[in-house]
């Protein structure tokens, strides 16, 4: 930001005059602001259909109010809804345990490399999958691990038992989790590597003078340096904890069936857009969104209690 030496005379003008003066800038900002309002804030109002018996041909205004009826599937514990909730939570748990720490470990490994050149080559390779769409990632996994994929061709050629990983409902969760790791672990190291480069190298020297081994240095110098960013990312992740890859899962749902693969987002899509139960789907989507917001606020509060900065300061 520019630092002004004395108060600008314009700041004493009335609001109307200031807006008139800024009319060109307002015009500049108009299209972008309008688009964000229309496609981020207007849909929030659309959530009103969670409280309506929505009929597409009557429109939002014409449909009757139905009170909390649409929320019955949630509060009465409809089995299909509970299954979707359970699948979502299991996938979230797997991601918290397996996906979240992966980039931290990888960043530590990359950071410990001596050769800048090797480090850069490895980074270029590992960042690449992030730029591929989920359709491409799922297709690549099919080609590698499917019935006629590379793995099974190899097993067949060596007279070993084949292993169909794609379309196997027991392995679905592992498959989905490993796809997330494959796609985004490399990319996620960027933030951790940046945090690592901020750590004062004198701390390491001091620690090694005090006789700390490499492992102890990682524990007492590196990890505290990463703590802020780890907590920040974990809180943000919590807000998304009921969101587990809509695109990724809808693409593979046909192969394994809904029992293991239905998550809250696919439940909303299948019942609302495809099944026509608009109100119910909107109610589930609304509760899901609210839970996400509450989790972020709560986690941030906890972070403050422990003296961390969190996503925003108090």
């Amino acid at each position, binding site marked *: 930001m520019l630092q002004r030496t004395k108060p600008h005379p314009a700041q004493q003008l009335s609001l109307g005059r200031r807006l008139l003066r800024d009319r060109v800038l307002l015009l500049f900002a108009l299209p972008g602001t309008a688009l964000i309002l229309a496609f*981020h804030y*207007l849909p929030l109002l659309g959530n009103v259909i969670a409280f309506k018996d929505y009929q597409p041909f009557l429109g939002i205004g014409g449909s009757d109010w139905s009170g909390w009826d649409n929320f019955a599937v949630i509060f009465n514990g409809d089995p299909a809804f509970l299954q979707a909730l359970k699948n979502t939570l299991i996938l979230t748990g797997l991601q918290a345990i397996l996906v979240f720490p992966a980039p931290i470990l990888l960043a530590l490994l990359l950071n410990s490399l001596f050769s800048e050149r090797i480090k850069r080559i490895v980074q270029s390779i590992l960042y690449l999958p992030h730029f591929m*769409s989920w359709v491409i990632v799922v297709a690549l996994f099919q080609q590698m691990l499917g019935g006629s994929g590379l793995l099974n061709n190899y097993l067949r050629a060596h007279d070993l038992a084949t292993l169909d990983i794609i379309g196997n409902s027991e392995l679905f969760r592992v498959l989905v989790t490993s796809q997330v790791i494959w796609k985004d672990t*490399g990319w996620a190291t960027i933030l951790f590597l940046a945090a690592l480069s901020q750590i004062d190298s004198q701390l390491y020297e001091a620690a090694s003078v005090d006789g700390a081994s490499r492992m102890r240095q990682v524990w007492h110098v590196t990890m505290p340096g990463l703590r802020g960013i780890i907590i920040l990312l974990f809180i943000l992740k919590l807000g998304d904890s009921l969101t587990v890859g809509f695109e990724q899962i809808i693409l593979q749902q046909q192969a394994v069936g809904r029992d293991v693969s239905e998550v809250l987002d696919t439940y909303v899509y299948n019942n609302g857009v495809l099944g026509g139960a608009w109100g119910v789907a909107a109610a589930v989507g609304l509760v899901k969104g609210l839970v996400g917001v509450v989790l972020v606020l709560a986690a941030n509060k906890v972070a403050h209690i422990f003296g961390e900065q969190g996503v925003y300061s108090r």
Partner: protein
Amino acid sequence: MTRRIVQGVPVPSWPMRAFKGVVLLVFCAVVILPFVGVISTSVAPNKQINESGGLVLLPDSVNFAAYKSLFAGGVVTRALFVSIFVTVIGTLLSLTVSCLLAYALSRPGFSAGRPILLIVLFSMLFSPGIIPMYLVVKGAGLLDSLWALIVPTMVSAFNVIVLRAFFSNLPGEITESARIDGAGELKTFGYIVLPLSKAVLSVIGLFYAVSYWNAFFGALLYLNDSKLWPLQLVLRTYVINDTQLGSADLGTELLPPQASIQMAILVISIVPILLVYPFLQRHFAKGVLTGAVKG
């Protein structure tokens, strides 16, 4: 035992270095092998594909029959044109609208700057939900139109923040002197700010282009008419769901094996990303970090 010391840091023992090397090699192989397999299979001779039972890692010889049949004017050719149209038009519109907004937000003393900035920032914290989003797109009359792939995702708040950070960091004296020489906002923006921002414009442009090229969710949700399908939906239908592509779909009589056709479709959707990747890669880390810090 004494360790070799380089720049004040002891060099790790050789087993440790070997271990790291192996781990990184495995990581890289796991990322690269699928791409190699897919590209090889798309150009491998039929006989080799049949013998291997599917994917080929090293083709005996190279033939482009699969690509010829895909470009013969059928489903895939059309989808390719749709994807190119959406990517080019979408990126141009996104860049224009985002730059205008970011420039306005970067001007010190812009009276509406603060509230608009808050609107932009706050929109990053939540996503609107599938059903209400569908209703808004439907209400705007965009269903079954290619604009449904462009308009709802035209402005990314994140990209606006990165652009704004860049514009704000340009030396204020330059815009100030343009002002004294009598340039209005439009002239300052067009003749002074934009030419100084080529690097950030190309990076943000590429970010937008990649997301338009990869867009699948919007197409799945908003397009029923298969004539409007972009490449990603064709990929889902003919590769992931394994629907057979017949000669009617391809517009050619000669049919190469399905495996090589499928892999060629996959390659067509990957190659544009691979082409811009070296350029993206050079700049994105900086772009992402600016956004993270200033946001």
